[in-house]
């Protein structure tokens, strides 16, 4: 894991069909640009994601951080072509090695994702079918796509379980999901996402439902696999504490937009957006001193806006301790706050300065 700013490699973009090739460190695998997703409901159209852009680079981990309802999951479902029927992409692109996934017909979109972009969901129990053995489910995609024989598929399943460090893999491929603990199920999900050797793995809150102990194990596993295979990894989470050790870059989302993008060290050292700063403060800490002056835990006051009820101006202004008049009227653009990082705040320089000073 390097800490340098990603090298911008765009030469592959030309007319690459996105077929499998070796992944070079620093190669841009997935580039999401100006993505907007809308939900149509009884109460009209609600914009869940609005102009989101990020880049997934081989060998690096991107953390997509935000509270419930900020659009972080919806945006990745859009990339995967898994949006519910009520939602649709209204703008933007998601280019995998130059191929815009969102412009493909749905069937080809899913096929393309199946081979190159895989996803792990939060609820591993719901994502596994209780009536099939774990081994069967692990290799279902493999058999369907490559026509591998039963024996080959089984061998591959054992390999995959070994890869995610499930003990006694050879026996456990014959067991059913309910015989696995929560952490082991999540490992199985990761293994099944890896079955077709994807270039990009998107993990949506992979550890939220797990104990801290298991959470740490799963995070470490993801980091190891990512580094080993030189994969691009997207970690979706609400907890900045969890990704500190594994992420290389962070995109903080609020009300459907990216409000801050920065390499991980810079972001934790000196956030350039008040929301990032508040999120960081709210992470529970083991070492004492995690409280503010009057002995209370710091929180982000209030709650995130419901989609469709996004406040005017800067969406964060009702919860922001820096909010001034301009924040109520003008939407701050995502602009460079310092070299290699950007922030969508009218006063990002002030926030950045305050954090450093």
């Amino acid at each position, binding site marked *: 894991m390097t800490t340098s700013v990603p090298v911008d490699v765009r030469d592959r973009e030309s007319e690459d069909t996105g077929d499998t090739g070796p992944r070079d460190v620093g190669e841009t695998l997935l580039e999401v640009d100006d993505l907007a997703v809308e939900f149509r409901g009884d109460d009209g159209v609600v914009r869940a994601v609005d102009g989101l852009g990020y880049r997934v680079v081989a060998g690096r981990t991107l953390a997509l951080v935000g509270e419930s309802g900020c659009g972080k999951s919806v945006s990745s479902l859009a990339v995967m072509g898994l949006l519910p029927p009520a939602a649709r992409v209204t703008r933007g692109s998601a280019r995998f090695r130059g191929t815009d996934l969102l412009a493909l017909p749905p069937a080809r979109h899913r096929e393309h994702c199946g081979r190159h972009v895989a996803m792990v969901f939060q609820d591993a129990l719901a994502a596994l079918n209780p009536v099939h053995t774990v081994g069967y489910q692990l290799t279902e995609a493999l058999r369907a796509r490559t026509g591998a024989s039963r024996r080959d598929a089984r061998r591959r399943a054992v390999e995959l379980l070994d890869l995610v460090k499930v003990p006694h893999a050879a026996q456990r491929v014959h067991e059913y999901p309910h015989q696995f603990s929560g952490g082991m199920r999540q490992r199985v999900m990761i293994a099944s996402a890896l079955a077709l050797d994807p270039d990009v793995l998107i993990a949506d809150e992979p550890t939220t439902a797990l104990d801290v*102990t298991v959470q740490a194990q799963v995070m470490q596993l993801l980091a190891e696999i990512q580094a080993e295979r030189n994969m691009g990894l997207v970690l979706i989470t609400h907890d900045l504490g969890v990704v*500190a050790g594994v992420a290389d870059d962070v995109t903080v989302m609020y009300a459907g937009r990216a409000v801050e993008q920065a390499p991980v060290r810079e972001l934790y050292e000196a956030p350039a957006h008040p929301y990032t700063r508040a999120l960081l403060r709210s992470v529970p800490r*083991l070492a004492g001193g995690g409280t503010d002056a009057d002995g209370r835990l710091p929180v982000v006051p209030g709650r995130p806006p419901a989609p469709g009820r996004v406040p005017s101006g800067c969406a964060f202004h009702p919860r922001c301790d820096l909010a001034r008049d301009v924040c109520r009227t003008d939407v701050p653009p995502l602009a460079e706050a310092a070299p290699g990082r950007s922030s969508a705040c009218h006063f990002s320089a002030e926030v950045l300065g305050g954090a450093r000073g």
Partner: protein
Amino acid sequence: MAELTRPSPDAGTPGDVVLEVRDLAKSYPVRRGVVLKRTVGQVQAVDGVNLTLRRGRTLGLVGESGSGKSTLARVLVGIERPTRGAVLVDGQDVSTMSRAERKHLRRSVQMVFQDPYTSLNPRMSVAEIVGEPFRIHPDAVPAGGRRRAVAELLELVGLDPDHANRYPHQFSGGQRQRIGVARALAVKPRVLVCDEPVSALDVSVQGQVINLLEDLQDELGLSYLFIAHDLAVVRHIADEVAVMYLGRVVEQGVGPTVYEAASHPYTRALLSAVPVPDPGAAAASRPLLLEGDPPSPADPPSGCRFHTRCWLAHQIGAARANCADGDAGSVPERCRTQDPALLPPDAPSAPARPDEETGPAPEHVAACHFADLVPGGAPDTSSRTSTSTSTSMGADS
């Protein structure tokens, strides 16, 4: 003889014991067969737990899933009957009470649940949810004053009383958790058992709920049993911490002692797993002291229940194998055969169990044969290395 008029929450002085758990055990039979169900074993969910909760204090209970902490909570609020031991509320043993007394006493111990989405009936309005306790205990508030009581409760937990006619799905997770707290407070309990009350919430709002609980504690003199799997969450709110593993308390002590001088390898492992929000210190190189999942409580390991996953036992075993003729990678025989007692960590293994002693309860106890070998200091700054451990171990053996 029953004194059915419950004392107001202001009765008593801080420091009084409001809830005591003595040698509590709860086991569930494991049954096989469809028609003739045979009992083939027992799951020891909770096995001999002693706890004391004082007025106005918070006891944090920490452990992985399967450690029995939720079962303990269910026993305390009276949903499950213990198989052994006693629960004492204000010094009175709950199990010796009549049905009516028990129903009355249940009011003093209430519960806040983990999942704000399943803990509120989706078909009931907030007013109905918070007002339900008054219907169950009609004597709690006179019929005419219930609407006002509900409004006051909502205000107490920081919700707008005008929203009483709304339904749970119209609130966010944090707000729902407040509704759950309001419901628990309706019957004026003295003890709130909070079963992972924030682990289902976004980190950004977890603090809101914890701050609310602290405010309520100050205002109403409540005592909390705060259950969590994350030591960092407990750190802020708890005065005392008990760590559970496979149905037993393995370490217990006043807050700082457990965090700064954790004496049980399991507590150490839990501490090492807490994410540190600092990319520099956190890096993946940080040692992770716990591998795999806890064994099944239906078949707990012999001796010390933690020995199968214990990093310290393995280190000691490995060190012994190096300098003596033992098998490599094995754990010390004591860990495999002898059940360690809860003792002050610095004291040499004394034969008496703490509950048989006459003096005041020690401030810090741990159930490990080698507690004195657990390196001191906070985990992230610890000088925990295999050499230091093996040398000190060498001195012991």
